[in-house]
Structures are given as C-alpha cells and as structure tokens.
C-alpha cells in the first residue's frame, strides 16, 4: 500500500517548533518530525508521551540481580563449596560486586536492545529520508494523509504561514 505524506522543510529548529504547535492547534496530527538533533520542547508539542523504555532497564535489572545472586549462591554454596581461607561458603557480601556488575551489564544491554527493537533500527535497514539534509541541517515536518487529510489547502496554508521553506507531497511504497 502506498502512503501519502506532506513534507515541509525548515531551516531552523525554532520555526519548526512554532509550526508544529500551529499544525497541532489546527487539529492536524503530526506524523513525525525529522531533525539533525533532538529538539527540546518538541515532545510536548507533538504530544509524545515519555518513553517507557526505562521499565525495561528496571525489570531486566531486577532479573539480572536475582540471577547473579542465585548463581553465585548456587555455585559457591550448593554445587561445589570450596574452602578458601576458612571463609564461609555463603559469603553474601562478597557476592555484591558481581551482582552489581551483572545488573548494570544486562540491564544496559537490554535497554539498548529494546531501543533498537522499538525504534526498528537494525543493520541493513534502508533509511527512509523524507527530505534531503535531515541528518545535516534541515528540519522536516511530516503529515500523513490518512491521519491528517491535507488535500484541502488548509495544511499547506498553515505550514506556509509558519515559515516552511518548501512544502511538497511525497508517496512511499511499503
């Protein structure tokens, strides 16, 4: 199915931010914004809620902590207790550093993996660039026809009034 988009490009972040607010005020839904760096204030303007990815960190961290503790207890107390300098088999305090390291390692890796999955970033993915230079110095505001019908001239007008350098329609196959 081909998708139809309206792409407006801007040359600075503030104009873009104002345009996003104006577009939202006019009851259009912003499909996405493309920018060379994260623009602060855009989350609120676009109505993006805070990412829940930190929950992945928390949950995996808890699991990793439990695993690390259980693993060390199992190996040192149950499976093969080894008398080293008369220390107790269950030297729980001595297990703390490795519990900490494994918690950090596994929760960190899981968080990044979750980001890649959620944002669908993977090696070999063909990048979909809505405008030239969005990774360099151009900012693009994109509306999708299905969410925000832009055939009426209203969308064009709002974007033009709010300082868009260039507006054009674009179709993508997917």
């Amino acid at each position, binding site marked *: 199915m081909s998708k139809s988009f309206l792409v407006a490009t801007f040359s600075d972040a503030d104009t873009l931010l104002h345009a996003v607010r104006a577009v939202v005020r006019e009851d259009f839904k912003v499909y996405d914004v493309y920018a*060379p760096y994260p623009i*602060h204030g855009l989350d609120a303007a676009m109505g*993006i809620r805070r990412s829940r990815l930190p929950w992945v960190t928390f949950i995996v961290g808890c699991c990793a902590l439990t695993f690390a503790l259980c693993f060390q207890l199992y190996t040192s107390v149950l499976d093969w207790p080894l008398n080293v300098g008369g220390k107790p088999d269950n030297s729980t305090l001595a297990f703390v550093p490795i519990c900490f390291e494994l918690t950090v390692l596994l929760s960190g890796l899981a968080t990044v993996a979750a980001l890649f999955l959620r*944002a669908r970033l993977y090696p070999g993915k063909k990048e979909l660039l809505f405008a030239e230079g*969005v*990774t360099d110095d151009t900012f693009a505001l994109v509306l999708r026809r299905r969410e925000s019908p832009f055939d009426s001239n209203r969308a064009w007008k709002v974007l033009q009034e709010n300082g868009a350098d260039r507006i054009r329609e674009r179709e993508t196959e997917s």
Partner: protein
Amino acid sequence: MSTTTSISVNGKPPAEAARIQTPVLAPPVWVDENPSLRDITDDIARPLEARPGKGWWICFGIAFAALLNLVGMVSWLFAKGIGIWGLNNSVGWAFDITNFVFWVGIGHAGTLISAILLLFRQQWRTSINRSAEAMTIFAVMCAGLFPAIHMGRPWDAFFIFPYFPNQRGPLWVNFRSPLVWDVFAISTYLTISLVFWYLGMIPDLATLRDRAVGGIKKFVFGLLSLGWNGSHRTWARYEIVSLVLAGLATPLVLSVHSIVSMDFATSLLPGWHTTIFPPYFVAGAIYSGFGMVLTLLIITRSTMNLQRYITLRHLDKMAKVTMLTGMIVSYAYLTEFFAAWYGGNLYEKYHFINRATGPYAWCFYLMVLCNVITPQMLWVKKARTSVAFLFIVSIMVNIGMWFERFVIIVVSLHRAFLPSGWGMFYPTIFDIGILVGSFGLFFTCFLLFIRVLPMIAMWEIKGVVGHGAHKMALSSDEEEVTVNV
C-alpha cells in the same frame, strides 16, 4: 515550566513590570564563531574525507612501530614465560599490574565526561565526549592485556570466567576473590562503554552516510547507522536511553576502580591493606584520565583544526577538574601517612618510612612532584588557558599517576613483613618495551579513530549552539522560554 513572569515590581502594574528586563546570565558559548549547522558537519567530517597530513603519518608511524614492538615482545613472553620480566619472589607484581591499573584509570575520565557530566547537564562535555569515550575503550583494551599476559599460561585465561560444562567438572571460580570481581568489572565496563560510544555515534554515522557519495564508505556507514533517519519519535526514545545508560555508567565507573583497588585493599600487605583505597583510586583515576584527555585533545585540536570546538574554555574546565581531583589525591596521600603513624601498626609505619626514605624514594618524590605540586599551579587562570603549559602539566600528570601505582605496588611488595623476604625489582628491557608497546596500541587505535569516525559528536554540538544552548541552559524541557512583552 514557563519562565514567563508577570509580577508587579515596585507597585507598577504587571504589564509595565514585565517590561523591566530581568537580568539573566548570558548562556555559555561553547563553540566559537557561531557556525551554522552545515559548517559544523563540514568541519567535523572534513578530516575523515581529506587525506591525512604529514603530522598524522609521523604520529601513526611511531605508534605503529611501538605496537609492532608490543606484538613481538608479547610473543616472546608467551614463548619464554614471565621470567623475562624483572619479577622475583619478593616482587611478583610490578610493571604489568602497574600498567593495568594505570590504563584502567585513564579510561575513567571518558566515562566521567560522557556519563556523569551528562547527568549534571554540563554542556562543555559535548565537544570532548566522543574522543574521551574512544580513549576509554582503547585504554581499557590496553588494561585488559596486562592481567592476561601476566598469567603464566595466558592461553588458559578463559578459566577466569565461570562456564559450564568445563574440564574441571563443575568447579567454579572463587566468587569471593577480588580478582574475579575485577574480571566482571572490567568486562562490564568495556562492554557498556562500547555500547554507549556506539549508541552516541549512530546519528553521526547517519550524517556521514548521507554525505558519502557512494562506494564502500556509504555501505559501511549505512550498515552501522542502522537506518537512522532523524525521526523525532526515535530521538525522544534515544535521549531517554542515553540518560538511562549514563545513569548506569555513573555507578559503574565508580565501581570499577573501587574493585581494582580491592585487589590490593583486601590483602594484608602493609601499604595495601587500607580502607581508603576505593575513593582514593577513583579520584586518582579521574585525575590521570583528565591528564590523558588533555594530552590527546591538545594535540588533536591543533592538528585537526578543531580549535573552534575544543576551545580554551574547554581546556580551562578540564584543568579545573584535574586540579580538584589532584587535590583529592594529595589528601589521600596525606591520610595514608597519617593513618600509618596514628594507627600504630609497626609494619604499616615502616612501610611509609620506607616509601619516603627507602631505595624507591625517588619514585615517591617524583609522584609527589607530579601529583601534589603540579596541580597546584592550575590555580592561576593564565596557566589554565596556556596550551603549552597545560600540555606539560598533562604529561606530568600521566607520569605521576603511573609512578603512584608503581609506588603502591612495588614499594609495598619489596619490603613486606619478613626482612628475609625483602628484595628489589629492576625492570628488564621487556618490562619497559611492553609498557611502551601498550602506548603504541593505544595511540594506534586513537589515531585510526580520528581518521575514520567523527571525533566530535556533531549532533550534540548542533544541539548546544545558538538557541539550543540558551534553552538547555535554562533547562526547560517542556516549554520554550518566552519573554512576556
């Protein structure tokens, strides 16, 4: 948070009062000459697209020769055993472990800059974080080399990881041993640093991908940039994940050198058996790391023409951190001596007398000169903004911190409890050659890095120039700053 104010001032109505400008500090400027976004991309990508200059080739030649020397000497070490070093029954750890602690320490500044300063919202980090993180990774690689080659049978180095099934039956590693903690700490540190570094580079790799005209460059950058297209929905998640990783890396970096210090502190040896070690080592690590960051950046900013991004103000900030951590280190030295005297332990007391008057006293005084006296010169603003002076200071810091570890390790070992077990350590050509070789490995990696990857985080710089800086300085995440007129 909106900073729009409409309060009455001196009884005047709000509308008029608002016209009275509230004095606000000007936002700090971290990039000179106010470049446009495209200028930033061009400036930072230029070294990757041009042919390397003569200076780079000379540096690379020297570094690569040292790396080859490392390969040769380590091969010889594997063939002959660690007897080719100057180790003996009294001093079983010397250059190898000194180098290990030294290199791990160097790495710490990178994580401090990229993670801790991110949490503190220090914008000056943006110009230097990428290269400092790269430095961390290469330094930890150098560090990891030493415990491995110090093992009598380095081909069995994997025994240190718990795995199953193994040839020893279900015999596990001793989880009570700080040496095992070290393995986990260093490998976690290396992994998380690598991931953090790579994650931070993805948007820049996409920029380079879109700049590349074709061929292998486009393919490689395309593969590495994971299809990044600058979507703000992704940016929003990306920033949260960066923050989470910074939050994880902060206690991690503090834990790594604490655990390294426990290799010593949990033993009973006078000079090692002290509770002050973890914070003392962490401060020393950051101190030495900033020394190395200064050395590297002073060279690269002039050879790569990046003075616009790595300004004197950045060097000034780094000098201040160096001075602060240098003073913490000095305080730790003092505390050690005080505890030795006040603690009343005969062996501990002798160790510190021996440290200052024994056969290795010159190492101790060199350490004091470099780590206690040198950072004091940084009180002077002129010193902090003189590139040549800072360069000398940074070299002194590196020398001083290497000697600190040498003093801790060798001086403690060479005269422990029983005078009959005393001895001296004299380095052989292999001790020195492998130390030099590790610098070769480090600088070869770093020089390649500045040629093939963007050494300054373009997207972060873009975020702090101009209006972005003003907003971030006022840390208004939710709402843009508006002035009520």
